[in-house]
């Protein structure tokens, strides 16, 4: 069974931008290890001639023509979804 290290969990947390307490790291280490172990059962199957499943819908070429669509939205309404905005721009914590 796959065993995750503490570092593995911390790396995952960092990639997902999550802060975990020490207790949580240990908790998730066990939980994710068991999930991985469960998924690992798939390795027992011979998949040599099986194409990867990219899609379960079976659809291809779902496209639209290059035309403007009126979604019935406006800037003010849309920007209300952002926690903060200022003169039409979305305000975020300083980046640089």
């Amino acid at each position, binding site marked *: 069974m796959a065993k995750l290290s503490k570092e593995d969990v911390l790396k995952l947390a960092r990639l997902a931008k999550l802060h975990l307490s020490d207790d949580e790291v240990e908790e998730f280490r066990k939980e994710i290890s068991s999930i991985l172990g469960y998924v690992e059962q798939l390795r027992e199957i011979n998949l040599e001639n099986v194409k990867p499943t990219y899609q379960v819908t079976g659809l291809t070429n779902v496209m639209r023509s290059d035309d403007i*669509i009126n979604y019935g939205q406006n800037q003010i309404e849309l920007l209300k979804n952002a926690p903060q905005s200022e003169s039409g721009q979305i305000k975020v914590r300083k980046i640089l």
Partner: protein
Amino acid sequence: MKISDVITEYTPTIGIECHVQLKTRTKLFAGVGNDAREAEPNTLISHICLGMPGALPVLNSEAVHLASRAAFALNTSPQKFSKFDRKHYFYPDLPKGYQISQYDEPIILGGYVEININDRLRKINITRAHLEEDAGKSTHPAGKDYSLVDLNRAGTPLLEIVSEPELHTAQEAKVYSKELYLLMRYADVSDANLYYGNMRFDVNVSVSKSKELGTRTETKNLNSFRSVEKAVDYEIKRQVELLEKGQKILQETRGWDDVKQKTFSQRSKEDAHDYRYFPDPDIPPVVLDDKFIARVKNEMPIMPSNLRKEFLPLNLDKSAIDTLIDSINAAQFLHNVISRTSTENAKRIAVWLAVEVQSIVSTGESTWEKVKLDIDSFIRLSEMVSNNELSSTAAKSIVGELIINGGDPKKIAKDKNLLQLSDASELEEIVNKVIGDNSNAAQDVKSGEMKAVGFLVGQVMKASGGKANPNLAKELIMKQIGIN
């Protein structure tokens, strides 16, 4: 230690990634206007561009069409099967927390760009090119503790073209970038406006003394051919310097400071992004059939490398060819001219385009898009020179008139009183007078001083207001003086 002494011991290896903004009307996955150049911040957005929960992105078919054209420009065909994947990272200008891109099944695999390095043609292979959406733009108000995000550009379709690491000098990197720019313009897939960042180059540079490649750095977001050249040049020198000092090259992402003409470290690849790619369930794969691929192939215009081959018999100098190729209108016009007339005419017209028309365009009096290029008029004008009806100087002055106002070259020549005197009887009068006025020169000619003939022809030209046919004038002078 001087760098110049040791730099030749190292072989630089350069690969280039180029992001090309495709000229669709709308974004890659949303029916929202794509031209963010003059738009106020966040006026070209939708629930899709903002990555709202439940929003369903739908692929723009024109982006697939343009990418397919780009494939042919790169001397290959688009892949029959390609798909989209999610590339995950957190950044405020990427609202979804992932970018929709193409990971292991891109729309273009292979192909090449042909470049001319010191009169030698080289093929630079293309690894791949994939479709992806652009991110938004963030600004950092001075003195404030926050940044502002404008998502107008988020979702703009990009084609990222990745070259094999087959370039070895800064000059080659520049020539490759310029050629790629021409290809994208000829294929008409991008406005390719460098000022607006329609094409952005990332250069991967490493140096090595052995066959094994050295550690590479990536200098990102170069937006001119000159900065590609300078950044590569700078990186080669910087890396050689470090290695000579016994230090190691850090694998890292660097930026280019155009003012200081230096690259600078941005982030180390130590915390190399783990993008956790997986197939995007929102976007079903793209399957292109033979009919579509054949249709796109058919609609492709003639490309620069073929035009250059076609222009070869005209024996033009390199700068004239570059001028013509730089302007698609000029090159395509000349292409049509060549199929319609003699090499002599085509060459004369080529020079008119590269010199006369170009000078009118570069003074801003007109543009290559606006000038009137009428094949019949140009061929007729050239024939008038061949037939001695018009001096080449007079013809050049008519070219200006022709491209601004159009019209019949013969009529313009008549109206401007430029038609050559090719009628011997008319010219004889002038010749007689010139010989009479310059008896010394005439005497010199008689005694074998042939240089004086040129002087007399010049005087005849002057007296005729430039209209005399110089060959006929010379003939008449010789006859008059009594030498044959």
